[in-house]
């Protein structure tokens, strides 16, 4: 009988019930969309902030000491180097997945035909790698120097056949030497010389405008530096630093075992640096403060902003649902009055009304959840050009929100109606 009555209501009053379901779906979709976006916005903004370039630099351990004490007078750098064959190991650390881009650098001071000194920098441009994990990565300065404007020509592709001895040069240097794309530039290093074919001219808006960028191996040949690199720039997705990270950055051994584990397994800039040092022999990895700190600040602000907007829209959704549920229960005063008049118990009436509303709420909530996830995808694709990942925690939050709000909207209304005297209600008096 109970179920027949419920089915009866749902079928007979389907228009009203549909309206409730619709409003609940709206509220649930709003909550689901905002929660999904909120939980993912940190990752997305982090990804965007990668346009600022590397946030970690790796240099040989003894570089600074040697340079300062023995080499500045001599002028030529023959000290410590990192090993090129270890570069791949960076993608094997614990937080390998967070490393989005990296590039090695080797700098050789060379002379041009007119006798002027110029810095030739060897690096990766668009270095395609197939990782043992099956992942593919295009690493190099095409990603790490996203602000470079290519004035003419194109990015160098060191892995294509005829570009091993090609180079990209800065706009200031090109102007000075009156070079354009397609020309050849003769460069003499300490242990070799090369003719670089100019593939592209870039405007970096800094000192790089006076430099030559060429493939790593070509530049190593200029100074007989086979397999040697000066530094590595790494662009990694990091979590903003907190007290623990700051303490660990100073001295990881000062942490307790559990603190150490939390730190090591969180993507702080300092723990990623530490892990890079573990795989690259004799290296010092340090966060680039200018990039790392600003990233942290901007990410925190964006996340906080989204949290507050989410709270506002959840309150809006909650009150919207609450209002409509209350209004729709109140509307049924005469029906409830009639039930009471023919002898129904208060409990039975409450159970009946609540079950009806709950069935509607579940129905609306499920539709709303998927609709909301759709809205989140629209936001993700329009703004960031990538999908918003589904966080499982959104489901229980939306479910609890819908249940609580429906209860909060219907119980006071039901209690109020039960207090009324059936005769008055049926008579229609207020």
């Amino acid at each position: 009988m109970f179920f027949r009555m419920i089915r009866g209501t749902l079928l007979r009053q389907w228009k009203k019930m549909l309206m409730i379901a619709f409003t609940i779906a709206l509220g649930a979709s709003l909550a689901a969309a905002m929660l999904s976006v909120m939980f993912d916005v940190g990752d997305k903004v982090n990804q965007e902030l990668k346009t600022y370039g590397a946030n970690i630099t790796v240099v040989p351990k003894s570089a600074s000491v040697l340079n300062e004490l023995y080499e500045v007078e001599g002028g030529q750098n023959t000290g410590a180097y990192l090993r090129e064959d270890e570069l791949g190991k960076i993608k094997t650390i614990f937080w390998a997945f967070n490393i989005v881009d990296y590039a090695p650098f080797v700098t050789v001071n060379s002379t041009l035909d007119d006798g002027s000194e110029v810095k030739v920098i060897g690096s990766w441009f668009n270095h395609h790698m197939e990782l043992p994990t099956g992942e593919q990565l295009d690493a190099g300065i095409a990603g790490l120097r996203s602000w470079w404007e290519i004035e003419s020509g194109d990015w160098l592709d060191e892995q294509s056949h005829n570009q091993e001895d090609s180079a990209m040069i800065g706009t200031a240097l090109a102007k000075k030497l009156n070079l354009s794309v397609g020309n050849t530039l003769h460069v003499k290093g300490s242990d070799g010389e090369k003719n670089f074919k100019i593939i592209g001219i870039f405007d970096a808006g800094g000192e790089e405008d006076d430099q030559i960028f060429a493939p790593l191996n070509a530049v190593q040949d200029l100074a007989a530096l086979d397999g040697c690199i000066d530094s590595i720039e790494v662009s990694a997705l990091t979590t903003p630093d907190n007290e623990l990270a700051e303490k660990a950055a100073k001295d990881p051994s000062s942490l307790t075992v559990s603190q150490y584990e939390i730190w090591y397994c969180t993507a702080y800039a300092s723990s990623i640096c530490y892990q890079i040092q573990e795989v690259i022999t004799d290296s010092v990895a340090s966060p680039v403060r200018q990039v790392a700190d600003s990233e942290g600040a901007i990410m925190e602000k964006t996340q906080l902003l989204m949290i507050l907007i989410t709270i506002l829209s959840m309150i809006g959704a909650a009150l919207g649902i609450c209002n409509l549920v209350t209004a729709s229960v109140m509307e049924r005063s005469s029906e409830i009055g009639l039930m009471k008049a023919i002898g129904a118990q208060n409990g039975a009436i409450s159970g009946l009304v609540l079950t009806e509303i709950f069935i509607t709420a579940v129905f609306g909530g499920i539709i709303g959840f998927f609709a909301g996830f759709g809205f989140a995808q629209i936001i993700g694709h329009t703004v960031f050009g990538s999908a918003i990942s589904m966080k499982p925690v959104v489901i229980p939050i939306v479910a609890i929100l819908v249940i609580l709000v429906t209860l909060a909207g219907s119980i006071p209304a039901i209690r109020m109606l039960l207090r009324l005297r059936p005769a008055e209600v049926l008579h229609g008096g207020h």
Partner: protein
Amino acid sequence: MKKRQMYFRMIIASLMRRRSRMLVALLSIAIGATVLSGLVTIYYDVPRQMGAQFRNYGANMIFTAADQKFTLEDVRQGTALIKADQLVGVTPYRYENVRIHESPVVAAATDMTSVQATSPYWHIEGEYPSSDGQILVGAGLAESFNLKSGELLEVSYTPAEMASGDETIQDNILEFEITGILDTGGSEEDYLYISLSDMESLTGDAGDIDIAELSISASSDELSDYADMISNTVSSVNARLVKRVTASETTVLTKLQALVLLVTVVVLALTMICVATTMTAVVTERRKEIGLRKAIGASDSSIIKEFLGESMMLGGLGGILGSVLGFIFAQQVSIHVFSSSISFMPALVPVTILVSVLVTGLSSLMPIRSATEVDPALVLKGE
């Protein structure tokens, strides 16, 4: 006149009599209006506030000498062209080769207060120098020479005349107290930092500036306008943009703005539909009343007018309430997220009220019309 008085009396009486239900409707309209005014205020304020956050990345414009050297006076002339409220900081730098422990190093002379505005990302272990005779040492140098803050450091400078072979001139030597070790993860770690006046006493000449860093919170178009204007007006200065900072800022800021815009649109659309359904429910509930009125001879248009008046009055009230609450919300967000207050946008108040009146009006119009179209007898019978 009498008729209009009666009209308002009816509307107000109806609102007062059905107080609890009208409160429910009013609440829902007010929430809609709050979301509207709050989010729009945030949307307009986010670029400004976020722009300020992006100044963490440091200088976005640099002055270099157009031909040889330029002075502090030129820097002052250049910065005078920039609106004062956009200028976050200006820091002049003068680089000289000096020697510590007989090794050559580069010393930079700068203004220690403004450097904190243009390079907020500098990490100092210790303190910034606060008076003359104090020095900041880069972490790289500190490690090489085993220097610690609190220690004294002798810095010597060889005047140009001596380098040219005149043996009668001695090195200038000054003793500094190390107040802090600078950690940036960049090339700054290999420099010494002292004040401009100390550099003067060390080198013995007033000297010129090598470079000036400026941090300006402005869009990249505005920045390049400034750069052109300064380069043209102050002949000794060449103003350039730090492309890495300006280009990336434009990219990221555009994305963030688009994010807030889309979120605003989605939230607004859903909230407005929510308000509309609530209003529809509130009006539908009163079909009986409409039927009764029709039965005692009221014309359709008078019923529509009365109900519309009622809901639009609710809409107006809700709009006013929402404008106030929305501003409070935006203010709280701004204080908590950006720790700065938000400017009140007066134009938003009429817009909010208008939108809430329109939404409530339109959403109640439909059920009223359908109620008036039905035969009063059927409505009263409850079918």
